[in-house]
């Protein structure tokens, strides 16, 4: 293990480590554009120059491997001057577009200019303009060649990560420009990631274009609910400026680094799967299409359950839980319908069509918590049986969590269910066709509004955090069921998801000894 000194601090790193990685280990950040930890080194931006003792010229820290006894200085006058000169060179043809550029605020050119540049412009010539200004290069991305500093991060991304080879740098000198190969379009499933890795505003997101300034955004850690991979994400939202995007709160989703799950990436399906948080939501409890209060809703629901309980016909309750729910929600469903009431028919595996999948991040199972539901809820019956029984009127209370039954089983089936079942309860966050047939509709919270955990396909438990207050009167699924249990006179006494999780850890073996603290930001794998 070579031992080297960076800015007077000693560090031991494995052979083959580069200076920039060793410095990062010490918490020293060296400015960089073309270097990205997940991509191969290109070494073309030259801003990461550092001074290595006994070497006559400055070295690029992203490509210089460490050696025993190396003495590196990252902020000597020589380095600072070089950094300023490199920045001036990179900015020679960069347009002063900041007012209209979506990258402004998270742009590395702005950041490093304010930190290391701050020179007076010496530019006497006119900036070289490209043929076209911003233009769309695919479903998701806009390209502005003038803003590009040719770091080739996106080129390397499409070469090494997606292996689709769309990007290339064409022409030479002042005329070199980033472009797609002729006849190509950037339409792979991971195209949004090139926006994240672009250090400047050359590649910007079409979905986020001109929506909101990045400095308005607040960030909440979360987990993508789009499929069973459970990619770590950040929900970026704004509530202070409701005039933006018709009162929508979530502006965009960004991937969050987790080496075990998704590295720095996220698929486009997950990235743009956030509109349901603000659109088409159920905001009030409804009974026969009329808005009612939670009190009234609970009266109706508890009345129906109680009458079945008294006449000991618990097997006439059918519950279609969902793998979209958190572990905590599912545990409360199990606790209430299986343990406390007993005998109810509970299942979550409704026959969904497998979605799009690939060998990288996208999984065919589009539910974030199938593994958790299997561990917590198990399965005794088949959802098809529950639906069949409901159609034949052998079930008096059908409790559906978010599933669109009309899409899964057909309109005929749902019409029969609403006719033959005495109380058809739909609990979900968004309006779908099933709402037209359900008798009682209960608004629940979306993943960005509640706390909890998901278990992904690698049996990894990961936390989600509430970003903002729920819309309207929506409540968390566990909270609604706790309320119901109170009405039934067998209160479950859960205060918050944390206390539910503690009970999961105490009663369900794979979760043993886990707490929210142990799960942390990055999640932890369940015991087999």
């Amino acid at each position, binding site marked *: 293990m070579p031992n080297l000194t960076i800015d007077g601090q000693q560090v031991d790193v494995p052979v083959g480590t580069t200076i920039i990685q060793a410095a990062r280990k010490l918490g020293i950040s060296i400015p960089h554009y073309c270097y990205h930890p997940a991509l191969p080194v290109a070494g073309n931006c030259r801003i990461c120059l550092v001074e290595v003792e006994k070497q006559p010229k400055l070295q690029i820290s992203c490509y210089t491997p460490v050696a025993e006894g190396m003495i590196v200085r990252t902020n000597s006058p020589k380095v600072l001057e070089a950094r300023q000169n490199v920045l001036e060179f990179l900015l020679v043809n960069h347009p002063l577009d*900041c*007012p*209209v550029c979506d990258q402004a605020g998270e742009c590395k050119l702005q950041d490093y200019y304010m930190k290391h540049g701050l020179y007076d412009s010496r530019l006497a010539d006119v900036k070289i303009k490209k043929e*076209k*200004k911003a233009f769309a290069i695919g479903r998701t991305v806009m390209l502005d060649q003038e803003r590009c500093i040719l770091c080739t991060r996106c080129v390397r991304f499409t070469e090494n990560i997606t292996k689709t080879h769309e990007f290339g740098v064409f022409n030479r000198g002042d005329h070199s420009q980033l472009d797609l190969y002729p006849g190509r379009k950037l339409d792979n499933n991971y195209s949004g990631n090139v926006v994240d890795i672009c250090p400047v505003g050359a590649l910007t997101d079409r979905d986020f274009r*001109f*929506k909101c*300034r990045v400095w308005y955004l607040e960030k909440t850690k979360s987990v993508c609910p789009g499929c069973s991979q459970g990619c770590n994400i950040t929900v970026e939202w704004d509530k202070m400026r409701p005039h*933006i995007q018709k009162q929508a709160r979530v502006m965009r989703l960004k991937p969050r680094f987790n080496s075990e799950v998704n590295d720095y990436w996220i698929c486009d399906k997950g990235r743009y799967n956030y509109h349901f948080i603000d659109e088409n939501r159920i905001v009030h409890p409804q009974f026969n299409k009329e808005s009612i209060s939670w009190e009234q809703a609970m009266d109706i629901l508890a009345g129906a359950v109680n009458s079945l309980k008294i006449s000991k016909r618990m097997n006439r309750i059918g519950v279609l839980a969902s793998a979209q729910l958190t572990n905590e929600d599912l545990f409360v469903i199990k606790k209430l319908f299986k343990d406390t009431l007993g005998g109810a028919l509970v299942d979550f595996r409704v026959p969904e069509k497998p979605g799009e999948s690939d060998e990288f991040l996208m999984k065919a199972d589009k539910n974030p918590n199938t593994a958790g539901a299997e561990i917590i809820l198990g399965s005794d019956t088949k959802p098809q049986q529950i639906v069949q029984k409901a159609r034949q009127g052998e079930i008096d209370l059908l409790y559906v969590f978010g599933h669109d039954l009309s899409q899964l089983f057909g309109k005929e089936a749902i019409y029969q269910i609403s006719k033959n079942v005495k109380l058809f309860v739909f609990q979900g966050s968004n309006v779908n066709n099933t709402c037209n047939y359900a008798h009682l509709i209960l608004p629940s919270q979306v993943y960005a509004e509640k706390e909890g955990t998901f278990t992904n396909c690698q049996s990894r438990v990961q936390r989600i955090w509430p970003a903002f207050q729920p819309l309207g009167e929506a409540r968390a699924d566990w909270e609604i069921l706790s309320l119901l249990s109170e009405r039934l006179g067998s209160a479950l006494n859960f205060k918050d998801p944390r206390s539910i999780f503690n009970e999961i850890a105490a009663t369900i073996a794979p979760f043993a000894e886990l707490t929210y603290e142990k799960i942390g930001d990055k999640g932890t794998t369940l015991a087999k």
Partner: protein
Amino acid sequence: MDNPNQKRRQELEKYFDVQGPFAFLRLAQMKRAWRQGNRRQLTWWENTYIPTLISGIWLTSKHFFRNLGFHILHLVGLCKDVRAAVTYQYPEQKRPLGLRLRTRHRLTKREDDSPRCVACMMCETVCPARCIEITAAEHPDPNIEKYPAEFILDLGKCVYCGFCVEVCPEDAIRMDTGILNTSEYSRESMIYNKKRLMEE
């Protein structure tokens, strides 16, 4: 200053303004206040309101006769460099405004009458009263790229600080209309949209 009595005396002197020709009258008041604290009984003499009346009449007539005298002198061409009070007959007659005075905002235009604003939201960000609401949209000309689909400025909230003008990178918003009387009958009509801000 540490002496509480001295401090209190200074407060009282300030409160009663014991300067000018009729100071002796107020000095007596002050002395009494000194003895009794702030809550003090008016004496018989004070109860007649004659001392206050006299000092009031003195102040008014001082200005009246001074202005009268100087206006007469101005008429005959004397003492032109000494100013006397002038009354502007507002609203028929308007006072000249300082060039730097911050008055109602306007959005400046390009040659084709479209707004110069590129919806960079600097003004919206810097505004301490949060009275600006911009909705950005894609401009058909790719060299302009971004323009405000709507620009709403709530003058009911505006504090006229001028930060929006100072921060604007495009000289798109100015506070130079000279309009001071932005009075309306409802709060809603104090909200100016893009069209209203661009009217001459």
